[in-house]
């Protein structure tokens, strides 16, 4: 194979894959600006004839999408901020602090990763029912405040912090909390960004648990609201596409803005594993 042919082949394949990956998303964007019923035609139209915001107006004014958007932002932000604190503390402790049974406890936590979260869902629902947290934001936020994966990620990264640095600080008389805030956190910055994006995306995209625990429309997050709309308005493809845009766009934009951190962190986290 000549180098030029090989080059064309590699780039051609990449182009093809990228087209497959992006086409549904671009199509969604295009259809969301079409008039009702316009997409149901043969051949399927690629671009709207008279682009309009009508579907979005309908979504926000009549279908309550604004409320779902607000709920999603609220819930995902709360989960991200709080779980970041919890996971960073625990991950750092597993990486750098000494205590009896550290390795065994960590292995046990990793072992717990094998248990699918859904096993816990049924009793968790009953637990929240007795705590009066069903159909509340807290019902979604509380169980997501710590994750084994997050702790794992932080631990992997924090292991790279030289012990001498911490010991030196201890000799200088710094308390553990001060060391954590002043020395460890700045060093963990890349993983903090990564973990923040991971948590936010996971919280934003989460479906099964909010579906179970949020019974009232006023608390629905975007995915739940969208799934509910999809069952009511199955035939209104244009409206549903606009709903999908509203749901997907924020996370996609977040990813595009921070992807350097995200991918870098993802790589660092996995290579060391």
């Amino acid at each position, binding site marked *: 194979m000549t180098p030029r042919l090989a080059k064309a082949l590699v780039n051609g394949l990449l182009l093809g894959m990228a087209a497959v990956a992006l086409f549904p*998303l671009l199509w969604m964007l295009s259809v969301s600006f079409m008039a009702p019923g316009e997409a149901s035609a043969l051949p399927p139209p690629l671009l709207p004839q008279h682009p309009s915001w009508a579907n979005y107006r309908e979504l926000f004014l009549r279908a309550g999408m604004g409320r779902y958007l607000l709920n999603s932002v609220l819930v995902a932000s709360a989960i991200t901020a709080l779980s970041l604190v*919890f996971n960073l*503390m625990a991950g750092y*402790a597993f990486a750098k602090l000494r205590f009896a049974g550290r390795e065994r406890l960590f292995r046990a936590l990793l072992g717990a990763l094998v248990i*699918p979260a*859904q096993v816990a869902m*049924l009793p968790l629902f009953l637990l929240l029912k007795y705590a009066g947290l069903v159909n509340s934001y807290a019902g979604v936020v509380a169980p997501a405040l710590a994750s084994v994966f997050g702790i794992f990620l932080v631990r992997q990264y924090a292991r790279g912090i030289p012990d001498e640095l911490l010991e030196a600080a201890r000799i200088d008389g710094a308390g553990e909390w001060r060391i954590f805030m002043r020395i460890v956190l700045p060093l963990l910055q890349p993983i903090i960004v990564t973990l923040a994006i991971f948590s936010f995306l996971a919280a934003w995209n989460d479906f099964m648990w909010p579906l179970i625990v949020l019974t009232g429309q006023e608390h629905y997050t975007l995915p739940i609201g969208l799934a509910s709309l*999809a069952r009511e308005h199955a035939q209104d493809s244009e409206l549903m596409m606009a709903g999908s845009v509203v749901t997907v766009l924020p996370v996609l934009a977040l990813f595009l803005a921070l992807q350097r951190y995200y991918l870098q962190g993802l790589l660092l986290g996995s290579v060391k594993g």
Partner: protein
Amino acid sequence: MNSPRSAWLFLAPALVVLGVFFLLPVLAALILSLTDYDLYALADLRNLRFVGLGNYWELLHRPLFWSALGHTLYFVAVGVPLSMGASLGAALLLNSPLAAAKPLFRTALFAPVVTTVVAVAVIWRYLFNTRYGMANYVLGLIGIQPVDWLGDPHWAMPTIIAFAVWKNFGYNMIIFLAGLQAIPPELYEAARIDGASPWRQFRHITLPMLRPTMLMVGILTVSGYFQLFAEPYVMTEGGPLQSTVSVLYLMYDEGFKWWNLGSASAVAFLLFLLMFAVTVLLLKLSRRGEAP
């Protein structure tokens, strides 16, 4: 040296959350699966009975459980290799020195990963619409009869698999890419000097060096794919003819639709046992492969 007490203080918040919202419910689920918690028990706890392994016994005699298990295994057995293949292929292409505009392609291929399952499942439902869907239109151009993708029991699961692969392959692609970049270039140089073809280089350098990454990715992907739920919930609602009811879908219906929490917990535990067994099996197989 830090004091152990300070370590525990750092651990406490996360451990409390995991204990209360995960460990405790998992244990409770085990107990629940041994009872007949149902609608009547929900109304009045005096209607709760201990039934031992009765729920498990009944499930093993229920055709719907077996078919849900079959659908899930089908999804895992076909979806995981396809997804990992696509990830590895894309990673190899991106890692090739010949590829242009790498960051751009990487972003494009990764984009579906960050999207919301529900939202993109809605898109796919329209792309695979029998009458107006883009998929059938394109097939029609090359003379293939329209397929009732989501309405035909034989096609619904393949469509969901295609969707899942599209949605997920980017994640593993990034991990593979990292694995590829970690392979010392000297190995390839030496092989090239020995006159090894690209295929031989791939088989004798790339694959063995990627082995640990593959194992990790494989186990994570398998356990992820076993948890199939949102895709059929949005795209087919378990249909047609229950052909896309997965184990988790069954658990959801059993638990939150019919409110048989006892037997739903048993479903969850059986799924857990199965996932555990498959993970152990994968680890065993990989060790056996390493031995010689």
